[in-house]
């Protein structure tokens, strides 16, 4: 049993390393990833993030604009105020594959983004 678990862990690590080396935007399973976003001119940069499934994601968002924004995502069940010049941190549970949209409540037309879990 223990051997099986070790094997599985090894495969998972190797797999994630492969994925990581192939594309820096994707994080492998079993790893916690930190993703940094910036709000500039009422847009999320980058506006699209990709992570692997079963990864614990920490979103760190900096508001580089002079106005307040509220990060909001019904799909992620999160909302958080970001005063101008400040940074917030969102801790997300491991997510199922899918597209999770988020937006800035005060600029919903421009400030939109997606978290894609593969």
């Amino acid at each position, binding site marked *: 049993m223990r051997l099986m678990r070790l094997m599985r862990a090894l495969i998972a690590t190797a797999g994630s390393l492969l994925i990581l080396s192939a594309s820096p935007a994707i994080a492998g399973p079993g790893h916690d990833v930190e993703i940094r976003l910036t709000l500039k001119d009422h847009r999320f940069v980058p506006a699209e993030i990709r992570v692997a499934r079963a990864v614990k994601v920490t979103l760190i968002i900096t508001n580089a604009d002079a106005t307040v924004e509220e990060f909001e995502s*019904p799909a992620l*069940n999160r909302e958080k105020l970001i*005063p101008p010049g*400040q940074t*917030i*941190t969102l801790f997300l549970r491991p997510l199922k594959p899918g597209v999770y949209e988020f937006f800035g409540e*005060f600029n919903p037309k421009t400030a939109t983004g997606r978290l894609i879990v593969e």
Partner: protein
Amino acid sequence: MLGAFLITWREGIEAFLIVGIMLTYLYKIGQGRHGRYVYAGTAAALAASLVFAYFSNLLEAAFQGIGQDLLHAAILGLATVVLTQMVLWMHHHARELKGQLQTRTDEAIATRKLWGIAFLAFLGVFREGVETVLFLWGLVLQTRTSLMAAGPLAGGLSGLVLAVLTTWLFFKGFGHLDLRAFFRVTGILLCIMAAGMLASAAGRLIAAGILPPLIEPLWNTSWLLDERHMPGSLFSGLFGYRSHPSLMEVLCYTLYFPVTLLLARWYTARMTAARP
């Protein structure tokens, strides 16, 4: 312009609904003169929002990490408790008023209850205040650098004014209800709001990693009501609607009602027993 207008209109309604209920309630039981407690609570909340927004640079800890979630959870949790107390008290009075003269409430309305009302108005407005002040201040800053932003600022301010008018009209409509119907309608409304606040407080604690979500999401009802647009966003702010709620939030929401019903029975029994 329309975007800013809709935002402040919605935030304004969310903030002023409780204020409206309290004012109408006092007026209805012939205690309109005590409305100043409600106004005092509202004014204090506006002042606190301004101070909090002004010092938001210094209060980084309140926004970063889990500070913001804890702060929101505390405000929402406190508001749930105070709101529930108010509902129990109003419910008890509704029963008392059956076949009695309204003047009896004169003696029943203690100063402690009035401070409770003031505190509730404070929490109701402060809950949305900081956010709205920061939002409007951002519009003021933008207007300084470009005249293009004058439109949004005008929209934001008129949204706030219209929110006051909307709430006022809403309660003007309640003027036709008799006292018992008013109690019933507002009692149910306040209970749904309190359940929403409790579930939102739980949601904030889940975001802070303090409460387990159990199952998240339990379901997805965004096809029916989406928080990103009206009226979903208003339902979200007023009644704590979530399209992707966790099991923990749903439990808090649904269990709130039977628990409050039991509390109401206990409260009425205790108050009746206390009377000679």
